[in-house]
């Protein structure tokens, strides 16, 4: 990207080729992302039934899944924004969040027969515990594994991050064993709440979106309004200058990990309630997906990460449910990972700064 930094803003396109390139550079990613839904929408409208219900249901599922990825992606994007580290352990922290949630259901004795009031109260307590546990683990990991390596080559903290990811995975494996583990469907997630001409919105969708949006709003307000949030942004922009201005960089970084951990814990609980199925390896995939979301939105940019989460959720659901219509019946949901990672590579190649991200020190 060094050429871009020398010429600065792209010059006005003079030749047709340059014009096409400039156009693709600006809108290519958006076209690429819109291609899937648009294709299926046209496809469905041309069918005899002329109905978009199928697509609508996929979009609803995608948005609620995306809400979970958004919560995890924010943790990635905040940490990357401030210390330029891909926190590989973050996905596994999210897994721990699910596991803590599952454990708390048992501790509090929440079952399908628990009354509404008890259930809501129990879930709120569980949510708080999940968030606090994940936040403390995240802060601890930062203190032990990343802070001593502030001055080490960049590879070093990345490797400790992978190390912590392995440790957390192993904790999960010892905790609930190596196979998938069912979670009681406490909220009876697939109960229809709203029906919009065939497109149904279930309880689990409301839970996912209804919890994610306020959490993210509180967090963005905190970052943009509070003194500590301002310190975070200053540190992200230039740690050295921030320190000279009297900002305690270490505390600020700890705070970043704290916020990331809180959201990952919430995401973990929502995942457990939504999927009603948890296992120790869920965090690795979730981490990669959420990181893709963060990159898609523009790493370092919180709003971008949330947007990216929703987009990735929709892509995943489209791929899960309808990839066989495009590629043939041999291809099912097991190919979704390939689709997501192919998107990741395409974004990296054509728009490493993401949809709405500013250029980071690394990509610029």
């Amino acid at each position, binding site marked *: *990207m*060094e050429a871009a930094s020398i010429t600065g803003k792209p010059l006005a396109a003079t030749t047709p080729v340059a014009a096409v390139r400039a156009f693709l550079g600006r809108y290519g990613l958006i076209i690429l992302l819109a291609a899937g839904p648009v294709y299926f929408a046209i496809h469905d409208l041309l069918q005899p039934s002329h109905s978009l219900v199928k697509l609508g249901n996929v979009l609803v599922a995608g948005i609620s899944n995306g809400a979970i990825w958004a919560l995890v992606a924010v943790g990635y994007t905040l940490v*990357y924004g401030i210390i*330029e*580290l*891909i926190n590989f352990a973050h996905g596994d922290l999210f897994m721990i969040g699910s596991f803590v949630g599952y454990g708390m259901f048992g501790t509090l004795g929440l079952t399908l027969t628990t009354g509404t009031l008890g259930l809501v109260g129990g879930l709120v307590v569980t949510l708080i515990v999940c968030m606090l546990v994940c936040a403390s683990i995240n802060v601890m990991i930062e203190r*032990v*594994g990343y*802070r*001593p*390596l*502030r*001055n*080490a*080559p*960049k*590879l*070093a*903290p*990345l*490797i*400790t991050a*992978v*190390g*912590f*990811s*392995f*440790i957390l*995975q*192993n*904790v999960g*494996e*010892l905790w609930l064993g190596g196979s998938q583990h069912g979670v009681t469907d406490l909220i009876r997630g697939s109960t229809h709440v709203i029906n919009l001409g065939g497109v149904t919105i279930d309880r689990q969708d409301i839970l996912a979106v209804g919890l994610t949006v306020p959490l993210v709003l509180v967090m963005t307000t905190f970052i943009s309004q509070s003194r500590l949030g301002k310190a975070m942004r200053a540190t992200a922009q230039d*740690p*050295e200058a921030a*320190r000279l201005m009297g900002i305690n*960089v*270490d505390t600020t970084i700890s705070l970043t990990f704290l916020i990331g951990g809180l959201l990952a814990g919430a995401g973990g609980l929502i995942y457990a309630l939504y999927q009603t199925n948890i296992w120790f390896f869920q965090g*690795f995939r979730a981490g*990669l997906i959420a*990181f*893709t979301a963060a*990159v898609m939105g523009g790493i370092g940019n919180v709003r971008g990460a949330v947007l990216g989460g929703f987009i990735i959720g929709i892509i995943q659901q489209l791929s899960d449910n309808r990839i066989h219509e495009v590629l043939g019946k*041999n*291809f099912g949901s*097991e*190919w979704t*990972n*390939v689709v997501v*990672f*192919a998107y*990741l*590579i395409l974004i*990296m*190649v054509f728009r*490493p700064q993401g949809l709405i991200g500013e250029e980071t*020190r*690394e*990509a610029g």
Partner: protein
Amino acid sequence: MAALTGMRDTLADFRRRRWSGLAIAAAVFAIAWFLPYLYGPLSSTLDTAIYAVAYIIFALGLNIVVGFAGLLDLGYVAFYAIGAYSIGWFGSDWFTEAINGGKSGIHVGVSGQAAHLLGIHLNFILIVIAAMILTSIAGAIIGLPTLRLRGDYIAIVTLAFGEIAGTVALNGDAIHIGKFTLTAGQTAISPVDQPNLFTQFDNALNLRPYYWLGLVMIAIVLVINFSLRDSRLGRAWIAIREDEVAAASMGVPLVRTKLLAYAMGAALGGSAGAFLGTYTQAINSTQFQFSFSIFVLAMIILGGLGSIWGTVVGAIALSVINQQLIPTTFHTAPHDLFGLNFTASEISFGIFGFLLVLMMIARPQGLVPERRRKLELTEGLASDESLYEVSA
């Protein structure tokens, strides 16, 4: 100036030591050659040694990409997969139906039992060459999108490729090419041919030929590594690793140099993958996981990034831990020592994670640091890698 003079002295010292180093290497190699006679032909020590040998080749390959050229590759497992599938495709009855309607097979340079089987059966050396060609093409393809990126972004793109390779291996039975599928899906391609070089290899009777074959491969790979490092190309890699912009402005062709690093690192990984594939006798699609990439990366980091001997040491150490210490020697240690109700194998991931963290914090430069890095660390040359300093 003092620093420069010091460096010149160290470099002269290095040249003097080179010959003694060669002598030591020859001696170590000779000892390693006769080592199997101390153990039975089917001993588990020999088994561990063969895995170690394979991992040394993997690690030396990755060291070219990460250690020399400084391109963090987290998708190295893709080359293991392609190398292993090379032997699955070209050394088994996988393509039985495709060749002459399943009436006869294609045989090149094979004798003994394999010469009468259906499907494609190539000589092991030809398979290794095929694996290297396939992986170096794949390496260049994986390298292409990363050319404009740096650091962590390269890591993510390569990781994504590695995951794609793993998923394709796992679900390759959905991809039909003519009459046959790309991989066997969830099941393994097994058995595959055992090499027939001077003697017919048979891992049910005698493991020693595999070990010696591996040693010969290591010797070749080591020669390749040393001559690459000291070549014009090797210096270009190190220049890119140290400062890409400076290297480009001094006339180092970035695209070609980086792609060559990817391709060569991948080719070595492919040869090791073919070796491990024939030794394990099963190309199992579930083994191509991210943890493999990290395992090999951990070896070169443990040894010291960019250091060839360090890579060898790191690969041996981690293979022994993985193949011998965790599953056998200390298998019951958690229970015996601490009364815990799990075995060491169950926490092998955690142990590795812990080792990675410990290593990075205690000795980030590795066990046998590369001389150039040591110079940088001790004499303060070009140590501006960190972004800022914060007192801990």
